[in-house]
């Protein structure tokens, strides 16, 4: 089965084609970073406007990359939520219009389920159950993944997402927006123990996280004239240490031995390296997709659609209603 995936939940327009036999055949992504950079954040209206401009071009490019005709598409999956409402609607309307005229089934997919299951696009694959750390600009969650569609939210950030903390701290250092990746780059030149930032909420029981205080600490350090590279390195270390402490607790609590790292921040190399060491020490395994499949993409959407459709699921309605606020755990309740 060849599934076309469409992703428009935020500021990436993406179309991919996943073949259940041959794997990923096309993975087209258009990043709108430049559109939003001058505004210091994603402008929902501009994001939606750009999606409409790019969707037909990306569809053409994806079919061309896969050397396929549109008639060879067997099903269409699209991101139904969570995300920006106007942005989600463009992809949903495009997907449902396309699927209908091709007389193919369509399925609305949960964006975060896509992230959590993205490692299944590559080899080696994790086996269920596993622990997933979802870290992006919008989410920081520890999720117990029991099976396809079986998710338990173990803990999450009570304020800023990790990616958000990276971007905001980068902005404080004058690294522009979004500057999370630039901050990591700068951190390579700094001393990770130069400043002793608090590891937030580690002395409290439970698996919730908090990163807004860390951002404030960065602001104070920058204002008091510390070397930016040192601040960046110390900040990054504090984030990684905090995540590691919570991951250890989550592994102990669930008894799981496999860890999946997902979301845009999963592209962070020091975090990957640290978690690799951690899991090796524990005799477990860590899985993370290549960076291109960590950030928002349609391959993960096509994958989830393929997995769910192969067990008979598809949209009940012909409409294209979206779900801007849609907790991942709501999927567990459906089964």
């Amino acid at each position, binding site marked *: 089965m060849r599934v076309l995936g469409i992703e428009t939940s935020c500021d990436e327009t993406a179309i991919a084609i996943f073949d259940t036999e041959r794997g990923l055949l096309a993975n087209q992504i258009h990043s709108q970073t430049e559109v939003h950079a001058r505004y*210091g954040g994603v402008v929902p209206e501009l994001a939606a406007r750009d999606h*409409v401009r790019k969707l*037909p071009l990306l569809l053409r490019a994806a079919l061309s990359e896969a050397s396929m005709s549109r008639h060879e598409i067997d099903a269409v999956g699209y991101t139904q939520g969570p995300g920006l409402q106007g942005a989600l609607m463009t992809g949903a309307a495009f*997907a449902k219009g396309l699927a*209908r005229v091709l007389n193919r089934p369509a399925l609305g997919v949960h964006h975060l389920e896509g992230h959590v299951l993205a490692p299944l696009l590559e080899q080696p694959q994790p086996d269920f159950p596993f622990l997933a750390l979802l870290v992006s600009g919008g989410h920081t969650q520890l999720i117990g993944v029991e099976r396809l569609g079986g998710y338990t939210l173990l803990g999450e950030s009570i304020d800023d997402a990790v990616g958000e903390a990276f971007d905001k701290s980068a902005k404080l250092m004058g690294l522009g927006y979004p500057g999370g990746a630039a901050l990591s780059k700068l951190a390579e030149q700094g001393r990770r123990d130069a400043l002793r930032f608090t590891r937030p909420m580690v002395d409290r029981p439970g698996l919730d996280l908090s990163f807004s205080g860390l951002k404030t600490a960065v602001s104070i350090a*920058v204002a008091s004239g510390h070397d930016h590279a040192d601040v960046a390195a110390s900040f990054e270390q504090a984030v990684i240490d905090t995540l590691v402490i919570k991951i250890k607790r989550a592994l102990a609590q669930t008894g799981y031995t496999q860890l999946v790292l997902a979301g845009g921040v999963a592209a962070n190399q020091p975090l990957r390296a640290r978690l690799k060491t951690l899991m090796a020490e524990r005799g477990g395994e860590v899985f993370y997709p290549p960076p291109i499949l960590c950030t928002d993409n349609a391959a993960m959407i096509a994958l989830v659609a393929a997995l769910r459709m192969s067990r008979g699921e598809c949209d009940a309605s012909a409409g294209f209603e979206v779900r801007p606020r849609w907790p991942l755990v709501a999927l567990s309740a459906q089964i």
Partner: protein
Amino acid sequence: MNILFLDSATEACTAGLWQNGEIFSHFEIAPRAHTKLLLPMVELLLLEAGLDFTQLDLIAFGRGPGSFTGVRIATACAQGMAMGLDIPVLGISSLAILAQAQVHELGQAALDFAHSNSAPAVIHAALDARMGEVYHAAFTVTTHSVVTLMGTERVVPPAVLLAEFALPTIHGHTIATGTGFGRYPELVRAKPWRSVLSDALPDARFALELAAAAPRSDWQNPADAAPVYLRDNVAQVKVDRTPIT
């Protein structure tokens, strides 16, 4: 020729089918329910006409101006369908649709004006654009009973239109249509209109007349299908307040 039209630019959700001159259409006032209604409405039309999607020659869509989200829903859905069928698209102005409806309201009298040597009738279409503005355009009627745009479509405060309406014109009958006139009654009082329809919203029936009359050179590749928002200052550049250290 078979043309499908869909529009969700306003509170109205409307879709229609032109089958070699015969028109099938649906119209429903359904704020915030377009995503649910639009495609089922299209399905129903094809059933009524006994047509298959593959028999369509053109997908026409309400390209705005109107609700940004609504305009995008129709555009993206039209793009998806047209790409799946490998046929062209055609964007139809929501203001032109309103004006086209008035050609029927007026009947032969307006056409006589269009044909005669006297001053032509002018139809002013206005939709509420929120934020103290209206989308506005003026149209006249061609000999083929199809409206044609005079000047440009724009988004303006009602005061601008009030000032323009106060100027003497050489035009014949003037007609007002659209919710812009309902939202700002002073616009209705500003001129001795021959007729006013202040609650009019775009209806697929009239859009299809425009789509069918459009020359093939107006048909577009789905990748070139673009909404017309008119209002483009939708984001403000934030002044960076990062303390300089």
